[in-house]
């Protein structure tokens, strides 16, 4: 029998249905892969007993032909999703040993459809980071290394554990979240597929909040088809999230293989940055060529406010974070550091519980919302956000179906290499992805090639609101042309 961990989710589903193997066998294969890959630090909690129990249940349902669309498929869950009875920390010391008494809507839908939980995955603390280096559980290793080098690289972030685990074949797919690029950037760094759906597509209920007007959940997967299968289960209306949209979820898998003939693909000239590596430029051109060969029409488009998206994001996101993270006060859950009075208790708890990046963002957010600065910073940033969204609307109004860009300005880098002196250096990682969150649009990152050092690079496709299907159709074209990439095992 072939190694069960090397199957795609779609192949595993077929194998389970044909009774070639059981979910318990599939789950055990992944649990043993996880054990051997602890050096990657992708999982912050393994739940083997629960996984086997869920697998047995899936097997009995498959035997009775009563199986859901993800029956018996073992998944990893980003530690930002509340899981009932299983520690959920957002990889922050301040949540301590928080054990939710409820289940997030997105994960409950995965379990409804028969999926199996292998454990909780590492991420940047409160999803604030682009390298998975701010986690209180320590950094995550990227299964990819530069050719001929033993240096451990970052998997990107904030969903670094999700991307690393999927790339290293530790789980068949993973949940992730994306506020400024946290699904797409790690997917690009690890040769996995990641989609951030339209804002409102997935319920945010039960996901630890970072910046509520930007946060969206989505899957990281081994193929475009696998991502489509996972998103179908994760998406859907939820009365418990007032921003969740009440429209039907299409069968995303049906979009795979659909012709892209005649589609109009925009190439935004503002994404051509000064000093962009030639390899990224080449990859972008290759992507355009593949789509053209499949019958799409390429047009140059302009998104004039692109360069203001990242600075506006670094006002809006910290402002919302400072408000969302006010709840961590040492009273209702998590860590408590004593103080002489209640104010000192709050201040000591938050100083001890938040890491450096989170402290910095909460403070910036507090400043831009404070009396006398609100208009100059926050209000202005929200107006710029309107302009960023309008750029995309103008573009789509001219008949553009989707926009093709690089996913990241570089390949993965070494642990500790970036952002040490100036936090902005790290923030620039999200330069191509953050516009999409600011405009609430769907975006998919698909592996498209490798750089000269053998590291994966990805392309991003940006779609119209609630038109994830077009992204899956186009993503499939890129995947077919570029092929799929698996790292050589060194762990």
């Amino acid at each position, binding site marked *: 029998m072939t190694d069960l961990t090397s199957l795609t989710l779609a192949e595993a589903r077929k194998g389970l249905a044909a009774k070639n193997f059981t979910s318990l066998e599939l789950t055990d294969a992944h649990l043993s892969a996880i054990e051997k890959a602890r050096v990657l630090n992708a999982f912050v909690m393994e739940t083997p007993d629960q996984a086997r129990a869920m697998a047995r249940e899936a097997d009995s349902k498959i035997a009775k032909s009563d199986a859901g669309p993800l029956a018996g498929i073992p998944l990893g869950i980003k530690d930002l999703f509340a899981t009932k009875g299983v520690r959920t920390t957002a990889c922050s010391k301040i949540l301590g040993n928080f054990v939710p008494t409820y289940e997030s809507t997105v994960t409950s839908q995965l379990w409804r459809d028969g999926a199996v939980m292998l454990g909780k995955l590492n991420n940047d603390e409160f999803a604030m980071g682009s390298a998975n280096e701010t986690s209180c559980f320590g950094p995550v290793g990227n299964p990819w290394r530069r050719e001929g080098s033993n240096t451990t690289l970052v998997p990107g972030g904030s969903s670094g554990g999700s991307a690393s685990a999927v790339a290293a074949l530790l789980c068949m797919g993973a949940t992730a979240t994306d506020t400024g690029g946290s699904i797409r950037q790690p997917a690009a760094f690890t040769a996995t597929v990641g989609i951030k759906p339209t804002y409102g597509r997935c319920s945010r209920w039960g996901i630890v909040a970072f910046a509520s007007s930007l946060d969206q959940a989505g899957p990281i997967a081994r193929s475009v088809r696998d991502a489509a299968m996972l998103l179908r289960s994760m998406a859907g209306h939820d009365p418990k999230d007032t921003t969740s949209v009440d429209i039907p979820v299409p069968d995303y898998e049906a979009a795979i293989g659909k012709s892209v003939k005649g589609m109009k693909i925009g190439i935004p000239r503002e994404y051509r940055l000064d000093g962009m590596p030639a390899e990224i430029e080449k990859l972008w051109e290759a992507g355009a060529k593949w789509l053209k060969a499949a019958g799409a029409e390429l047009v140059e488009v302009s998104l004039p406010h692109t360069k*203001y998206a990242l600075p*506006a994001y670094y*006002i809006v996101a910290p402002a919302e974070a400072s408000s969302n993270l006010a709840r961590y006060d040492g009273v209702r859950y998590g860590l408590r550091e004593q103080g002489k*009075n209640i104010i000192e208790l709050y*201040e*000591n708890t938050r100083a001890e519980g938040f890491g450096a990046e989170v402290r910095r963002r909460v*403070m910036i957010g507090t400043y831009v919302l*404070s009396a006398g600065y609100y208009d100059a910073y926050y209000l202005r940033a929200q107006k710029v956000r309107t302009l960023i969204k309008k750029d995309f609307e103008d573009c789509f109004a001219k008949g553009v179906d989707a926009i093709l860009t690089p996913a990241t300005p570089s390949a993965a880098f070494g642990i500790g290499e970036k952002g040490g002196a100036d936090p902005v250096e790290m923030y620039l990682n999200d330069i191509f992805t953050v516009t999409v969150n600011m405009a*609430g649009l769907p975006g998919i990152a698909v592996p498209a090639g490798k750089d000269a050092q053998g590291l994966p690079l990805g392309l991003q496709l940006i779609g119209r609101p609630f038109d994830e299907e077009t992204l899956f159709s186009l993503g499939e074209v890129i995947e077919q042309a570029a092929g799929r990439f698996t790292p050589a095992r060194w762990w």
Partner: protein
Amino acid sequence: MSVDAATVRRIAHLARIAVSEDEVPHLQGELNAMLAFVEQLSEVNVEGVEPMTSVTPMQMKKRQDVVDDGEIADDIVANAPATEGHFFLVPKVVE
């Protein structure tokens, strides 16, 4: 715009984060780096532009005015660091 040491201390207090004196210069540098970065927004013409309030145009949903949750006091206090019965314990607030 940039912040001085006194402003850093004021923001830290507003954010309810204890900051020691020797952390102030470092934080001041980082906050000023971020403020310098966002400074470029001042060159955008936002005359007559509405600030974004909702990224997806939609009507605010309203729930039925009925009790649909509750009787879960055990759950609410389950993760609290200090409780007595169904109460959170905090240092004395009112003399």
